[in-house]
Structure formats: C-alpha cells, structure tokens
C-alpha cells in the first residue's frame, strides 16, 4: 500500500528548528519563516554544532548579507503564494519593496545577480508549483485553482502552465497519475 501525503512546510520547518535549537540548549525566538533570533551570544563551537545538525535536514545558515536578502525575497514570495492568510491588495512589486524596505529596482537587480533568474520568474515558478500540488492533492479543479491563485482567468493559468512546463495542466495530471498507478502495481 502506498500513502500520499500533503505537507504543511511551515509547520514541518518550525518543528525541526524547535527540536534542533532545544537539543543544543540555545535560547532563541523563531521570528518567521526562515528567520531565527538567538537571544544569547553563541559560542563558535555551538555555531558549528548547530550548523551541522541543521545540515542533516538540508537546512543551511545563510551567511552573506546579499544572500540573506535574496533568501528574504524568496521567503516573502513563497509566503505570498502559499499562505492563504496573506491578502495582497497592492502589486507584488510594491508589496515586496514595502515589506523588505528596499526599492524594487534594487531587489530585482540583486536577485538576478545572485540567482541567475528574475523575481518575476521565481514568482511564476512558485505559483505553478503550487498549482501542481493542488492539481494532484486537492479536489479543486483548474478554474478553482486559478481563482485561488489570483489569476484573472483559467485561460491565463493554463497558458502560463504550458509556457513554464511545456505541457498542459491536464497532461501533467495524467502523467503523474499514471506514474502513481505503475508504482502502486509494483508495490502490490
């Protein structure tokens, strides 16, 4: 038998961080997704131990200032896309620049320099990723997904999906379901 799981990445990340920081007896405060404040000065050997134990989970401590800001841009976008409690009434460029306290031009240049991609592109990739998840793991149809993700129409989402992945949403769904069928047959 095979189970398909749906993850809440925010909760998973938080639980992992809590167990790791508690395990090393550090005093800390989790400020938001991907941001932790240490309440006491940390010794170099503790820092190394923390880094090692986070690495087990593929978590990396981001060090350079530019890297930190790029990570904040990514986290803000992921939060905007995946977190339903955040309602953005302004253009996403305005939202990002207000939230991070830099001009959009600066953020955009920095992002491209570090990631070899653009903020717009990153945002599209995240939205398409979310729509893939919803297509596979929820009861929503494409029209409902388009609405949930703030697309002006289902055609717009459909076109963007095809442009980004080269295949249509329905072909995507068909392929993954076939893969699951085959995996299931092998397991039985």
């Amino acid at each position, binding site marked *: 038998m095979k189970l398909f799981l749906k993850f809440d990445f925010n909760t998973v990340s938080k639980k992992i961080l809590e167990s790791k920081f508690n395990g090393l007896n550090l005093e800390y405060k989790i400020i938001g997704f991907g941001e932790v404040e240490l309440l006491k000065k940390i010794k170099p050997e503790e820092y190394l131990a923390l880094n090692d134990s986070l690495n087990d989970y593929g978590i990396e401590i981001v060090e350079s200032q530019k890297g930190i800001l790029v990570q904040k841009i990514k986290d803000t976008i992921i939060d905007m896309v995946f977190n339903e409690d955040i309602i953005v009434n302004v253009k996403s460029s305005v939202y990002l620049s207000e939230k991070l306290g830099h001009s959009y031009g600066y953020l955009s240049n920095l992002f491209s320099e570090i990631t070899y991609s653009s903020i717009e592109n990153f945002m599209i990739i995240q939205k398409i*990723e979310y729509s*893939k998840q919803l297509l*596979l793991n929820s009861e929503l149809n494409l029209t409902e997904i388009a609405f949930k993700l703030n697309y002006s129409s289902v055609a717009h989402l459909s076109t963007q999906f095809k442009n980004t*992945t*080269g295949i249509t949403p329905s072909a995507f769904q*068909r392929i*993954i379901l*076939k893969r699951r069928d085959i995996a299931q047959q092998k397991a039985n």
Partner: protein
Amino acid sequence: MQTDYIHIILADDDEDDILFFTDAFDELKINTKVNTFKDGEELMDYLNDDQSRMPNVLFLDLNMPKKTGIECLKEIKASHKMSEIAIAIYSTSASEEDIEKTFVLGANIYIKKPGDFKKLKKLLSEVVSINWQYHTNGLNKDNFLLSL
C-alpha cells in the same frame, strides 16, 4: 549540503553532440561540472559504482549503443540511490505519445532536438537554469516535468 555548481552527466555516442553540449554548458553563468559517457553501459557502470558522485542532472540520448536511453531510464528509476537525479531525455522524435511515455517512465525533461545549434544551445541553458531553481529552492522533484 548545497554546492555552488551543478554536476551534469551527458550520455551520448555522437562526438559532435558531446562537443557541442559541453560548449553550451561552458557559456552558462551557472558553474557546471560535466562528465560524459559514450554508451548506456558505460553510464550505468558509473552510476552503479558506490564511489561515484550522483549528478544533479543527466542528459540521456535515446539512441545509444549497448543500452538505449529508455533502458537506462528504467534502471535509474528502479534504483533508490539514483532517485534524486533529474533526467533530461533528448530525441529527434516530437510525437506527443513518445513524450508522454517517457515522462510516465520517470523522465523530468524532454528535449526535442532542434535542427540548428543556436536553438539547442538556448534550450540547454534553459534546462540548466530551471534545474538550478529546483536544486537551490528545494522544489518537489516528483512534480518536475518540462517539455521543450
């Protein structure tokens, strides 16, 4: 641990293709390390060796001597240790049926080989960039399908 380069393996029996692919990778802004193999058997020997580093992305020619791309794909997908590799298949066939079949077998990327080199170069850089996104942003590889 994340590295700051992408490890690419290329399996192709055509020397011109290999030269051309490696040229295209060299021109990218993203750092790459490329290993090449001339047939499917050579490739699988490398991947099956416990000492070998698994690549981030594998470019597989469908028509190779000794072991075809499809045979390699099936073996790779059956192996646990190779499950993290993103697999890019390229072929001259552009039929929807072939593409879908390859995806169902577990390929992540399907590249219809274009006639001219300039276009191919553009496609390759697109593949590596998108793969870089998956690599650095922890996106779900099971849902990674790209047809070019």
